[in-house]
């Protein structure tokens, strides 16, 4: 029964996701297509952070660094190598460079733990933020506009609906991979480290290596999200790696459900939809959103996923 219900949810979500451009067209609200793309990209970012925080217990307040790094790979290449217009070339490059950045930063940050880890990840993100702010050849403070979206063979990427399907496919693939990872040997070890790192060490696990690999995967996925966002908005700016964005990603993860596979999507959806709805009522929507978040902390500490889970 439970099984059936879960599949029901999955199918319903998939049906809505696949038919969203048609539904939007029916309502005459094409705006919702790009809104949905944006939502999925945020969901990817939040899901990658959930791998770190929810599954591995590493609370990072600097995850937007990789989001911005991936975006800037797209942005800088559009200036330096305008001929490289294929997403098949640029997106993997964005992923690879974000992963590389995560290797270096992760190797330093993971020497610390707890609050020190929170603060040192924040410090690295701030460094990147200020570096890109003073990088005047690429727009500095003002950011960088992209002439057009990257291309994929056989697809008209300029169309919002087409781009939406591309993002949807990528998100679905990443979420599937994360689901496999969570149930795999690696995922179990990561969960064990979150539970009791000293015990895992004494069982023979080189916990640092596992945490670093998780950190790199999370950085790479965030970089992919950044590259997608650069294409979605045709614009990159240092604000993408500001600590505010890192904070929002973290809020989405907690809102959706720590360590839950669907937590990133649920949290991104809840946050962005709330924002969308509240801005319709008042310009001071942030007060309402803030109060809602406070209520979540005090009354629904396990997030949206906790509302669906069985009562213990």
């Amino acid at each position, binding site marked *: 029964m439970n099984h059936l219900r879960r599949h029901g949810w999955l199918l319903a979500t998939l049906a809505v996701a696949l038919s969203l451009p048609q539904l939007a067209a029916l309502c005459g609200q094409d705006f919702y297509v790009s809104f949905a793309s944006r939502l999925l990209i945020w969901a990817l970012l939040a899901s990658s952070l959930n791998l770190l925080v929810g599954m591995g217990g590493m*609370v990072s307040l600097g995850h937007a660094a990789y989001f911005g790094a991936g975006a800037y790979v797209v942005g800088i290449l559009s200036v330096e190598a305008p001929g490289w217009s294929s997403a098949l070339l640029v997106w993997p490059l964005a992923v690879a460079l974000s992963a590389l950045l995560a290797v270096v930063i992760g190797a*330093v940050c993971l020497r610390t733990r707890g609050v020190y880890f929170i603060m040192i990840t924040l410090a*690295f993100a701030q460094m990147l933020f200020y570096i890109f702010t003073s990088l005047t050849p690429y727009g500095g403070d003002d950011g960088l506009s992209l002439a057009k979206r990257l291309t994929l063979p056989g697809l008209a990427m300029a169309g919002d609906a087409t781009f939406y399907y591309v993002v949807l496919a990528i998100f679905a693939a990443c979420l599937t991979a994360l689901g496999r990872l969570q149930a795999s040997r690696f995922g179990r070890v990561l969960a064990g480290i979150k539970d009791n790192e000293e015990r895992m060490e004494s069982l023979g696990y080189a916990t640092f290596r596992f945490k670093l690999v998780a950190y790199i995967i999370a950085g790479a996925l965030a970089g992919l999200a950044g590259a997608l966002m650069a294409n979605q908005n045709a614009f990159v700016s240092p604000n993408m790696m500001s600590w505010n964005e890192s904070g929002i990603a973290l809020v989405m993860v907690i809102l959706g459900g720590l360590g839950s596979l669907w937590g990133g999507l649920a949290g991104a959806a809840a946050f962005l939809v709330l924002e969308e709805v509240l801005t319709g009522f008042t310009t001071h929507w942030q007060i309402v959103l*803030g109060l809602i978040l406070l209520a979540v902390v005090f009354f629904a500490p396990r997030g949206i996923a906790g509302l669906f889970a069985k009562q213990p």
Partner: protein
Amino acid sequence: MSWPLFAEQCLNGLQFGLMLFLLAAGLTLIFGIMDLINLAHGSLYMLGAYLVASLAQATGSFALGLALGVAATAAIGMALEIAVLRGLYRRDHLSQVLATFALIMIANETTRALWGVQPLVLNVPAALSGSVQLFAGIRYPAFRLLIIAVGLAVALALYFLVARTRLGMLVRAGASNREMAMVMGTDIRWLFTAVFGVGAGLCALAGAMLGPLLAVQVGMGENILILAFVTVVIGGIGSIRGAFVGALLIGIVDTFGRAFIPTGLRALLSPAVADVAGPSLASISIYLLMVGVLFWKPQGLFPARG
């Protein structure tokens, strides 16, 4: 580098460092004693600056505005502690981050709703608007000298408060061993509230002092909040002495970095490269400092807990 320029940068660094200390002192105690990551600490700084600016305008006196604004912010801080933050002490760091992040959103938007989006003007009091001849060839703005004096006075007062009073003893005990502090007083909730009030008052003081130099605007709290956290982490969580040393270190490094790294690089590198690298290196110098400190001393310079 000329002597007057060097001396002036030293004073600027000292002045910035002391203001940072006002913020970091409260933050490190709250962090150390209650184990609370309070991201909304910067919001109290912003709120303090707004209140002092408005009250100074309303009363026509900077000093009166300052006193009323600091008191009001301390009261708001204590109310916040009782209403919201008290419920977070025993929660994990993630919940604290989420809740205080929400408080930032609320504080920023409330400020925008009450005062509008335009930055507020907080004028230097007329008596202090000039500059003072310090020694041969060096004139320094009088108001900045006042900031240094206030900063030093507060540091001294805090030192006596923490080292010589019963309150200070409880605070020190709490920072090094929370369970012990719990045992010492049957009800130490008042201590937490008091510490929070003092911290909020210091935030407002810093906001009022820096207000005339920087803009009083929404978002001013976030930038300085991160610097305050860097200070706390470098100094060692829970250590007032660490916060003091860390704040001065950051004040000096940041000021000198901004003043001398760009010109220094121009002497070493081609102008095109130096013009990009200089400002970025200058603005990340303190973060490099923090990463370096944590790399060699993962608990900060003066760890409060053994």
